[in-house]
C-alpha cells in the first residue's frame, strides 16, 4: 500500500438488516481509491449507493444500515471496525462531510461561525482565536461577501449559495485530509451553482485536500473531478480518469447516462429543430396577469409574485417556462389553473373570459385544464389504489362507472407505459418514475386540452426523466394536448419545448421559439442563464468564468 492513497475501500459491503432477519444488500463489494490531492467523483442515480459509499469514509452508516464486509481505510486505518468513540477523533478532523442541503444541515439556533469552529474548538484541537482566524481565512478563500462579519449571522440570514460555501468552510476548518462532498450544488440554481463550484474547486486546490465528490450530474463532475467512478445498484460499472469517461464511455450504462443527461453544447443546440408554431390556434391565454400572496392592500397583495404576464398556449404545442427558484414560474401555473386568482389581468380559454378562481369555473372548464404536480410522492393519496386514483377524474368529469371506468383506467395505464396490473397497487409499491407516470395518467384521465406540468421531471433520475419527457412528446403527438412545461432545467426544456418563456423575479424577460432563444438570446439574464448550464467537457467552468471576466 502506498502512502499516496488517502482513502480506499476494499470489497466494501453495506447492507440493511431487516426485522425478519434477512439482509438487503445496498453496497456490493466496491473497490476504489482516492489519491492524495485528487478529486474522485462517485456518479450514479438514486439507489446506486453513492452516498452510502461516501459516508463509509467517515465510518458512518445512515440509520438502518450496517457495514457487512470489506474495509474502508482512511490513511491506512480501517474504519468499519472502529467504535463511535474512535471515529469521533477522525470525523471533522481527518475527514469532513459536506451535505446536499446546507439550509438543513446548519443548526438554525446557532450562529454560523459557532458551527464552523465548534468541531475543532470543542475537542481542543485549536484555540478559539486560531479557529476564528482559520475560519476568516476560509471565508476569504471561498469569496464570501463581508468575511469579517458573515460568521456572526444565523443560517437563515444568508443566501443558499453562501450557506453552501459556508458549509465548505465548516468542513475545511479542521484541515481534513479528505473532504466528502455529497451533491453539494444540486439544490442550487444554475447561476449560483457556477460560483459555488468555482469556489469549491479553488479551495480544494489551495488546501491540497483529497475529495470524494458525489453527484448524479456528469457535466458538473467534469468540471471538478480528476477521476470518475460510475456506480449502479451498489456496484462499480466503470472507472477511470474524467476525460476518458466523458469522451470514451465504454460501459453501456455510462453511455445511457451520458445520453439521458442531454449534454449541453453548441453542437446539440444546432440539432434543435423546432417547428414554427405561431400559426396554430390559441387554446388558452394569460393577458397582463399579475398575482401575489399575502394580505391585499389597495387592490394588490403584499408580495407580488407575478407582474404583467402575457402567455399564449397554442394547440398541440409546448411552452417551456424557465426560471430559477423564486422567479414565479410555479405561481404562473397556479394562476392558470385557478388555484391562485390573479388580482389583475385576464385569463382566456378559447378567447372567452375564464373565472379567476377554480371555485367559480364550470366543470367543463376545469376538465380542460389539468395540473401535474412536481412531487408524485405527495400528490398521490397513499391509501388509494392506482385504479382509484385514476378512476376519480373519470367518474367526476366523464361520468364513467363500473366496467367502462375499469377499461379506461387500463387504457390510460397502457398509455403511460404501465401494465394494467398496476391498477390494484398502492402508490408506495411504485418507483419514483412509475409514480410520476400515474400522476400523469390521472391528469390525462380528464382528457384535458392543456396540461400544466410543474417541474415534473425534477425529482427523477436523468434516465427516468428522459423517459417521462419522451412519453409527454408522444402523448402530444397522439392526442394533441397543449403542454406548459415548467422547469428550472434549461436542457430539459430545450429538448422538447416549441417556445420558451424566460422568467425572472416575477416578470417575463424574454420569449420566442426555442431555437431562437437558445442560439441568440437577447436579454442579459437569458444569456447568463444559458451560459451557466454546465457543458459536458472539462475546462468549461474556467472558460465561462474567463469569458465573463473579460466582458
Amino acid at each position, binding site marked *: 500500500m502506498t502512502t499516496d492513497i488517502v482513502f480506499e475501500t476494499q470489497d466494501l459491503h453495506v447492507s440493511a438488516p431487516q426485522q425478519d432477519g434477512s439482509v438487503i444488500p445496498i453496497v456490493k463489494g466496491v473497490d476504489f481509491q482516492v489519491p492524495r490531492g485528487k478529486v474522485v467523483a462517485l456518479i450514479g442515480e438514486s439507489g446506486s449507493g453513492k452516498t452510502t459509499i461516501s459516508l463509509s469514509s*467517515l465510518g458512518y452508516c445512515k440509520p438502518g444500515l450496517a457495514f457487512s464486509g470489506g474495509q474502508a481505510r482512511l490513511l491506512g486505518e480501517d474504519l468499519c471496525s472502529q467504535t463511535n468513540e474512535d471515529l469521533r477523533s477522525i470525523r471533522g478532523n481527518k475527514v469532513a*462531510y459536506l451535505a446536499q442541503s446546507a439550509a438543513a444541515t446548519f443548526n438554525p439556533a446557532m450562529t454560523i461561525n459557532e458551527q464552523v469552529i465548534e468541531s475543532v474548538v470543542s475537542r481542543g484541537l485549536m484555540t478559539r482565536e486560531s479557529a476564528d482566524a482559520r475560519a476568516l481565512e476560509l471565508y476569504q478563500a471561498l469569496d464570501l461577501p463581508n468575511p469579517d462579519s458573515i460568521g456572526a449571522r*444565523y443560517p437563515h440570514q444568508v443566501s443558499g449559495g453562501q450557506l453552501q460555501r459556508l458549509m465548505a468552510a465548516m468542513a475545511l476548518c479542521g484541515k481534513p485530509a479528505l473532504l466528502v462532498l455529497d451533491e453539494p450544488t444540486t439544490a442550487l440554481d444554475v447561476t449560483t451553482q457556477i460560483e459555488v463550484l468555482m469556489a469549491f474547486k479553488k479551495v480544494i486546490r489551495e488546501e491540497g485536500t483529497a475529495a470524494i465528490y458525489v453527484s448524479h450530474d456528469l457535466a458538473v463532475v467534469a468540471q471538478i473531478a480528476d477521476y470518475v467512478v460510475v456506480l449502479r445498484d451498489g456496484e462499480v460499472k466503470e472507472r477511470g480518469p474524467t476525460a476518458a469517461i466523458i469522451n470514451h464511455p465504454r460501459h453501456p450504462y455510462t453511455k445511457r447516462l451520458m445520453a439521458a443527461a442531454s449534454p449541453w453544447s453548441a453542437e446539440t443546440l444546432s440539432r434543435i429543430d423546432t417547428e414554427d408554431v405561431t400559426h396554430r390556434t390559441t387554446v388558452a391565454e394569460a393577458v397582463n396577469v399579475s398575482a401575489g400572496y399575502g394580505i391585499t392592500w389597495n387592490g394588490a397583495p403584499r408580495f407580488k409574485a407575478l407582474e404583467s404576464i402575457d402567455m399564449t398556449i397554442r394547440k398541440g404545442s409546448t411552452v417551456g417556462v424557465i426560471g430559477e427558484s423564486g422567479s414565479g414560474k410555479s405561481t404562473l401555473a397556479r394562476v392558470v389553473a385557478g388555484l391562485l386568482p390573479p388580482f389583475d389581468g385576464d385569463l382566456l380559454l378559447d378567447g372567452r373570459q375564464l373565472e379567476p378562481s377554480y371555485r367559480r369555473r364550470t366543470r367543463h372548464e376545469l376538465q380542460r385544464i389539468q395540473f401535474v404536480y412536481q412531487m408524485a410522492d405527495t400528490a398521490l393519496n397513499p391509501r388509494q389504489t392506482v385504479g382509484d386514483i385514476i378512476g376519480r377524474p373519470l367518474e367526476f368529469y366523464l361520468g364513467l362507472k363500473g366496467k367502462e371506468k375499469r377499461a379506461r383506467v387500463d387504457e390510460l395505464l397502457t398509455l403511460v407505459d404501465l401494465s394494467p396490473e398496476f391498477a390494484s397497487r398502492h402508490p408506495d409499491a411504485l418507483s419514483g418514475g412509475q409514480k410520476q407516470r400515474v400522476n400523469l395518467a390521472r391528469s390525462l384521465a380528464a382528457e384535458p386540452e392543456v396540461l400544466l406540468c410543474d417541474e415534473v421531471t425534477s425529482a427523477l433520475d436523468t434516465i427516468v426523466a428522459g423517459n417521462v419527457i419522451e412519453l409527454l412528446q408522444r402523448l402530444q403527438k397522439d392526442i394533441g394536448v397543449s403542454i406548459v412545461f415548467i422547469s428550472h432545467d434549461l436542457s430539459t426544456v430545450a429538448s422538447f419545448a416549441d417556445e420558451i418563456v424566460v422568467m425572472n423575479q416575477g416578470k417575463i424577460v424574454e420569449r420566442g421559439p426555442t431555437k431562437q432563444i437558445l442560439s441568440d438570446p437577447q436579454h442579459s439574464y437569458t444569456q447568463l442563464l444559458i451560459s451557466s448550464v454546465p457543458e459536458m467537457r472539462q475546462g468549461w467552468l474556467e472558460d465561462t468564468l474567463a469569458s465573463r471576466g473579460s466582458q
Partner: protein
Amino acid sequence: MFTLILKRMAIGFVTICAVSIIIFLGTKVLPGDAAQIRLGQEATPENLAALRERLGLDLPMWQQYWNWLNAFVHGDLGKSLAGDAPVNELIADRYKNTLIVSVLTAAVGVPISLILGITAAMFPGSSYDRVLTLVTVSLVAAPEFFTATLLVLIFVFWLGIGNAVVIGSIDGKSFWELIQHFALPIGVMCLIVASQLIRMTRAAVLNVMSSPYIEMAILKGLSRQRIILRHAVPNAVGPIVNIIALNLAYLVTGVIVVEIFFAYSGLATLIVQGVQTRDFVVVQAVGMLFCAAYVVLMLIADIAAILSNPRLRHPK
C-alpha cells in the same frame, strides 16, 4: 417579532372576551333565573319581580352582561345563590389549596419529566426507554381516580404512610410540611402530568434528533452530550414549553377528580358544588377564572415559542 407578540396577545384578549360571553349566555339558557332559585317554589310573582329588579335581572341581556363583566373585572365575583356569601370569600378560602398543589406538582413534576424525557430520547429503543414508555403509556391510559386509589392502597394501607384524606388547615405550615400534607394528591398529579410530559418531551427531542443538522453534528465528531445540549435541546425548546404550558393549565383546571378523591377543598370542588346546587354565580366566576388561567398559560407558551424561534429573534 414584537408585532407578532402583540398580535398574539390581542388574540388572547379576544378569546377571553368570547369565553366570557359563552359562559354568561350558557348560564342564561338554563331554566330558571337567580331570583327563582333563591325564592324557591313558593315565590309569588310580585316577590319574584321585586327580586329581579333588585338583582338587575329585568335589564336587557347585553346590559346584564356588561354589569356582570364590569363587576368581575373590578374584583366583585357576585354573591353565591346558596347562602348569599360573596363568591370572593368562597374562593379566598379555597384557592390556596389548589394553587399550592399545582405549584408543588409543577415544581416537582416538570424538571423530573424533562430529564426523563430527554434521556429517553438520547437512547431510543434502549430497555430504559422501553420501560419508561410502558409506564407512561399505562399512566396516560389509567383514569385519575384509579391512579389515586392505587397510590392510597400502596402507601396508606400497605406501607402505612400518608393520609388517604387530606384535611386540616395549611396555615403556619412550612414548605416541607406542606409537601407532606399534600404528598398523595401531589403524587397523583405528578404521575398524570409527568406521563404526558415525558412522552411529549421525548417525541419533541426525537423529532429534532432526526433532522439533518444533528447528523451533521455527528459527522463533525461532536460528543453526544454536546449534540444533545447544544444542537437538539435549543431547537426543541419551543414545542417543550408548549407542552409544559398545556400541562400546567391542566393542573389548574383538571384537578376535580383529585380534589374530590382526597376531599380537600379547592377551586375545582367549588365549581362542582356550584353545579350540584345550581349556583350558577359560582360556576360563572370559577369558570371565568379557569378560562383566564388557561388563556394566560397558552399565551405564555406561544410567546415562548416565538422567542425561541431564531428566525423571528434575528430577522434578516
